[in-house]
């Protein structure tokens, strides 16, 4: 009797595993795209995995951003890897930056842009009928697009203030060439999320924010 059950269960289990893999193979994946970097910081740092096989978990400390930091700008570049075998979209949400004092650090004081979309590890799906589109206004390096506003405060072409709820920042056709069920060193795409903060006479204090990047099924564009 037990042997009969076993002989019944074994193929059943294998079928379920195969089904799970098939379902997951249709999945979308976001992960670290490499080692994040920081420049222009005083007592600042950025931590995150250099391996594209690891989850995207990055901690950015911009450090001192009062005029005690005499650098022109603090810039952080976070590579983010994407994989999918279907059209996708990437959205981001931000929380935690709620300074009531307008002279304190605000969402608009943190420049945020995307650039440098490239194949992950040199391999990825080549689509000729659709392109990967960075949604407006995020297609820029905020460090190169900082300006002084009418009130003397630094402004950016795009910033965290442009994020409202879950905001789509990127979309496009299928990303991966192979139907792999596991994260690969290659076969996908990676882009750089760029964050900037210009030291200014902000009101004193410590500010923090959390950004959540999500990948999901996107507009059904052809490859």
């Amino acid at each position: 009797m037990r042997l009969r059950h076993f002989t019944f269960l074994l193929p059943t289990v294998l079928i379920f595993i195969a089904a799970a893999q098939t379902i997951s193979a249709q999945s979308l994946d976001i992960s670290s795209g490499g080692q994040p970097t920081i420049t222009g910081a005083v007592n600042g740092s950025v931590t995150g995995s250099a391996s594209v096989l690891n989850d995207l978990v990055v901690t950015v400390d911009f450090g001192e951003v009062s005029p005690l930091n005499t650098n022109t700008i603090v810039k952080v570049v976070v590579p983010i890897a994407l994989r999918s075998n279907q059209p996708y979209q990437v959205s981001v949400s931000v929380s935690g930056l709620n300074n009531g004092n307008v002279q304190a650090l605000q969402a608009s004081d943190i420049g945020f842009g995307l650039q440098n979309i490239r194949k992950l590890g040199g391999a990825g799906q080549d689509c000729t009928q659709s392109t990967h589109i960075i949604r407006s206004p995020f297609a820029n390096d905020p460090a190169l697009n900082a300006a002084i506003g009418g009130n003397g405060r630094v402004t950016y072409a795009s910033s965290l203030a442009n994020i409202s709820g879950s905001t789509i920042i990127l979309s496009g056709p299928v990303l991966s060439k192979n139907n792999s069920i596991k994260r690969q060193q290659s076969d996908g795409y990676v882009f750089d999320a760029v964050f900037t903060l210009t030291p200014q006479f902000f009101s004193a204090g410590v500010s923090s924010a959390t950004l959540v990047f999500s990948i999901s099924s996107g507009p059904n564009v052809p490859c």
Partner: protein
Amino acid sequence: MPRQTSSLTKKSILLLTFLMISAVTCLGQSTTGTVNMSATVSKFVEINSGGAVTLTGNSGGGVTTDGVANSPLAVSINLGELGPGNTNNFVTAQVPLKLRSNAPYVLSMTATVTNSGTTASRIGAADVGFGLGTVSRSGIGVNTTGADTNATSGDPTLAANGSVNATTGRFEFTGVRSNLNAFSSATTALSGPIIMNAVPRSNANGLTVPAFFAVKPQFFENGTTTISVTFTVTAP
């Protein structure tokens, strides 16, 4: 027998669930990632020169090291002749100061006066008038909310701030904190609210205020006098 079958079915379901979870977990895929960020803004204050020194009423002397706007304050002034040979009413040096902060500030001052003379008629700290003039907060990026408190009596040459002592005949600066004797140790001269809004350091605006130093030429004991003044701004 039915009980055995039921037990086996439960075990099978558990096994299947476990295997399904394991299969998905092994894929190591995720649809979300997080970036946590933080930044620190410390209190910041600074004092710089507000521009060139103005020296008036002097006989001889001159500005040895002038002030340069937005550069560290390091001014050197030769007040010239302070005896009766100088027939002007006062020798006055006006030194522009520029303050900037992202927090409420306090400007204090310490002064020392040394003289080669040996008698009571030598120039002393009380013979050097001092005061801060009109405070100006103007320009893009400067906070104009709130009021600054001038702890001095302003221009020491004003009639209200000094007069000849009817008994000794010596001219005295009598206003509140109107001479350097009041600043033998660090003493507040000016205080106020945040000076700068959230603008970068490259913004050259700030709070400007003239510091007046004045000496009434008199029959002081002859000799040389050195006056040293240090301004310090803090964010308590």
